[in-house]
C-alpha cells in the first residue's frame, strides 16, 4: 500500500513535470529553443507578486489573490517576452544551441536575482489550491496535481487546435520551419515569436501561482524543477506532447515510488537524469548526423 501512496505523492510532482515538459516542447517546436529559463520566469513573477501583499492588505482576500496572480502572470510574461525579443532580434538565424545558450545565461541571471530579491528562505507563496481532490482507497490525489495535469492537457490541446486549425497557426508553423521564407511572405516573425514567449511565460507564472510553495520551499529549488521538466520533454523528443505528459508522470511516479524506501532517497534526485540517459541511449541507437546532408 505504501507504494501506491508513494505513487500518488509522485503524481502531483509528475503532473507538474508534465506541464513544464509541455511548455518546453512547445517552445522547442515553435521557436527552436530549449528554454532553460522557462520555470525561472514563472517563479520570478510569482515571488515578485507576493511583494505586493503589504500594498493591498486592506482589500478582500479574493481581490488580493486576483491581484497577486495577475501581477505574477504579467511579470512572467514580460520577462519571458524580453528574452524572446532578444532571441528574435539577434539570434533569428542562429543554431538551436546558440539560442538555448542564451536561456542558460538568463537562467543564471534569474537565479541570482531571485537570491538577491527573495533570499534562500522559504516565502509565504500561498498555493491557490490546497488539499486533496479525491481519495482512491486510502490514497489522496491533490488538487494541485489534478490542476497541473489538466493544465498540461489543455495547453497541449489548445496549441494543437491553434497550430492546426487557425491562420495564426499556419504562420507559427511557417516561422518555425523556415523563418526567412516566412519573413519574405510578409509574416511578422518577431511579433509572433515574442508573443509565443510571452504566452508561455504567462502560463508558467500562472502555474507557479497555483502550486505555490507546495512543490519546493524556495525560489532556487523551484527553478531547478526545469530539470525533471526537460526529462519529460526528452521522452517526447521535444516534439510529441502526449509522450511528454506520460514522461512527466513516469518521472514523478518513479520518484514517488522511491520515497517508499527511505534508504533510497539519494537515488530520488538521480531519477530525472536516469530517465534522460536511458531515453537518449534508446532514442539514438541509430546513427544520426548533425545535418541531413
Amino acid at each position, binding site marked *: 500500500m505504501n507504494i501506491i501512496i508513494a505513487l500518488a505523492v509522485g503524481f502531483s510532482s509528475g503532473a507538474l513535470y508534465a506541464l513544464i515538459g509541455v511548455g518546453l516542447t512547445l517552445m522547442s517546436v515553435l521557436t527552436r529553443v530549449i528554454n532553460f529559463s522557462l520555470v525561472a520566469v514563472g517563479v520570478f513573477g510569482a515571488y515578485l507578486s507576493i511583494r505586493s501583499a503589504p500594498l493591498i492588505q486592506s482589500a478582500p482576500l479574493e481581490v488580493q489573490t486576483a491581484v497577486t496572480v495577475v501581477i505574477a502572470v504579467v511579470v512572467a510574461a514580460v520577462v519571458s517576452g524580453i528574452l524572446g525579443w532578444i532571441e528574435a532580434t539577434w539570434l533569428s538565424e542562429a543554431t538551436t544551441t546558440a539560442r538555448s545558450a542564451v536561456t542558460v545565461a538568463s537562467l543564471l541571471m534569474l537565479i541570482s*536575482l531571485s537570491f538577491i530579491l527573495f533570499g534562500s528562505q522559504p516565502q509565504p507563496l500561498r498555493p491557490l489550491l490546497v488539499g486533496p481532490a479525491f481519495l482512491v482507497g486510502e490514497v489522496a490525489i491533490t488538487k494541485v496535481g489534478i490542476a497541473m495535469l489538466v493544465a498540461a492537457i489543455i495547453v497541449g490541446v489548445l496549441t494543437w487546435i491553434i497550430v492546426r486549425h487557425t491562420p495564426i497557426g499556419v504562420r507559427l508553423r511557417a516561422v518555425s520551419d523556415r523563418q526567412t521564407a516566412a519573413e519574405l511572405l510578409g509574416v511578422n516573425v518577431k511579433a509572433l515569436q515574442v508573443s509565443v514567449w510571452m504566452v508561455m511565460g504567462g502560463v508558467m507564472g500562472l502555474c507557479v501561482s497555483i502550486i505555490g510553495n507546495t512543490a519546493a520551499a524556495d525560489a532556487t529549488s523551484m527553478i531547478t524543477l526545469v530539470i525533471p521538466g526537460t526529462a519529460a520533454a526528452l521522452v517526447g523528443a521535444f516534439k510529441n506532447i502526449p509522450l511528454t505528459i506520460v514522461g512527466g508522470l513516469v518521472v514523478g511516479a518513479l520518484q514517488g515510488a522511491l520515497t517508499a524506501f527511505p534508504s533510497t532517497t539519494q537515488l530520488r534526485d538521480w531519477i530525472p537524469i536516469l530517465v534522460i540517459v536511458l531515453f537518449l541511449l534508446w532514442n539514438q541507437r541509430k546513427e544520426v548526423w548533425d545535418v541531413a546532408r
Partner: protein
Amino acid sequence: MSLASRPRPTTRPWLPLAFALGAIALGAIFGFGMPAYVVFVATSVLVAMVSLLGLGIVTGTAGMIALCQLSFASIGAWILEFLYLKTPLPTVFGAASFLVFMLIAGLITAVLGLVIGLPALRLRGVNLAVITLGVAAAVDTTVQQLGFPDQSFAHIPRPFGLTSDPTGDRGYFLFAVVVTVLIALAINALQGSRIGAAWKSVAFSERGTASAGTSVRTAKLSAFALSAFVGGIAGCLIVGQITQVNYLTFTPINSLGLYVLSIVVGSQLIDMALFGGILFVVIPEILKQFRVPLEWSSVAFGVLGIQALTSNSNLGTGVRAALFRRRRLREAARVEAAGDVAAVETVAEAPIPTGTGRPLLVVEHLTVEFGAVKALTDVSLVVEEGTILGLIGPNGAGKSTFVDAIGGFLPQHTGTASLDGEPLDGLAPHQRARAGLRRTFQQDRVPPSMTVGAYLRFVTRGKADPDAIADALHFFGCPDASIPLSVVDVGTRRLVEVAANLAARPKLLLLDEPAAGLSHDEHLAFANRLRRAPEHFGTTILIIEHDLDLVRSVCSRITVLNFGEVLATGDRTAVLSDPKVVSAYMGETEML
C-alpha cells in the same frame, strides 16, 4: 610568385615553454612578494582558471554546452579526500600523496565524464546541456546529503608538507601556479595537435570531420573526458587551498556562471582563461568590499553572456582577429613596398588523364530508399584508376545521394561497393576515409576556427609534411598556410577543401560540385589543375558538376543519372551526344 610559396613565419616550438617558465618565475615573485590575502585570492583565480581551461575544451573548442564543470570539481575533491582519510594510501605515498591522489581523482573523474558524455555522443549540444544540468543538480544534492569525507572536521594536508598558515599559502600558491602552467601547456599542445583539430572540426561539422578520417565519437568523448579530468584537478586544488570543503563550494549556479564566463571570454585560449578566472574571483571580491550581495556578479556574467552570444563573438577571438588584421595590413604594406605582387601563373594546357585501365571503385546494384522514395535504383558503375569520371544529371537525379552512400553516410543502402578490391560495405565514414576514399561537400564544411595549414594537417591526418602542404596549396593557388580560414571567402574555402583532400593522397576522391562559387576564369584554371591532379597526387577522381564545360574539359568518361537510375555511361563525347541524355538533361527542345 604564388601566395603559397611566400616564406611562412617560422614556427617557434620553444615559445610556450618560455611562457611557462616566465609564468612560474612571475608566480614565485608574486607569491612571496604580495600581501597574504592577495596571494590567497590569487590562488582562487588559478583554480577558476583551471576550471575554465577544462570547460574551454568542451564549450570553446568542441562547441558543446556543458553545465556541470564544478560537479566534476566536487567529485575530484571528494575522491581526493576519500583517498586521504579513508584509505591507508597516505602512508604509502608519503609527501607525494597529494600529487598521486590528485592524478587518481582526475582520472576517475575523467571516466565519469566519459559516462556522462556517452549519451550525448550522437547528440547536438543542447542535449548535452540537458544532461549536464541534470548531473549538476543531482551531484549537488547527493553531496549535500552525503557530505565530504572531511565531515567539516578533519583537514586535508597540503602537498609537500606545506603548512595551513599564510607562509604555507604562499608555497601552495606556487604549487597551484606550477599545476596550472602544466595543464595550460598540455592543453595548448593538444589544441595544436590532430586531436585539437578534430575538436574544432566537430564543433563546425560532424560530417566534415568523419569525411576527414576522424571518428566523431572519439573526438567528442576525448574532449569531454579531458574536460572532466581538468575539472577534477581543479577540485583537488580547491581542497589543497582551503583544506576543508563542503557542497557550497561547488554549487550548480557557479557551474552555470563558469559556463557563461567561458563563452564571454573564449576560455579555450589560455590567456583568456586566466582573464576569466580573474573576473570570476575578483568581481565578487570587489562586491564583498562594498558589501553588495555577491550574486550581482552572476547577474553581470549573465548580461555579458547574452551580449557575447547575441553578437556571436568572444573577447579572446575578437582580440586575436584585431591583431591578425593589423599584421595583415603591415605585411601587405611590406609586400607592396618590395614590389612583390603575386603574379598569375600560366601553365601549359594539360591533357585529359586516361588512366591505367584498372577498375578502382566498383559499385554494383546500389539502391537507396528514403521511405517510399527511391533516390537511387540499381546503380552500377566502375571508376578506372587514374581517370576523372564525371557524374552528371539534372537536379534531384541522385548524384549527391550516390556520394553520400559511397562515403558511408547512408548505411541502410543495398548493393555493394569496393575500393581497390576491398569491400567498403559496413565501414563507417571515417573508416572509409582512412581506407583511401575521400569526399568533399557541396556545402561549406571547412571549419573557420583553423588556419589553412592546420586544416590541411588535420585532413591529411598528419601525413603531409610542410612541403607537401605548401605544394598542394600552390597547386590549387590557395592562400598561404598561415592564413586563418575565417578570412578566406567561401569559394576559395572549397578549393582549400579540394587541395587538402588531394594532399591526403587518397585512392579515390569524390568531388561534389567543387567549382560552385568560382568565377569563369577560376573555373578554367581549376579545370586545368584538376586534369593534372591524378598524376600529381596519385588520386583517381569522381566529380559531380553542373557546369558541362568543366565536365567536358576534364573527364574522359561520364555517367549520367536521371531519377536515380543510370541513363547513360561511357566515353564523354558519346554520352554527351546521346539523344536520351540531351533530352533528360537539357529538356526536349534544347540541344547541347
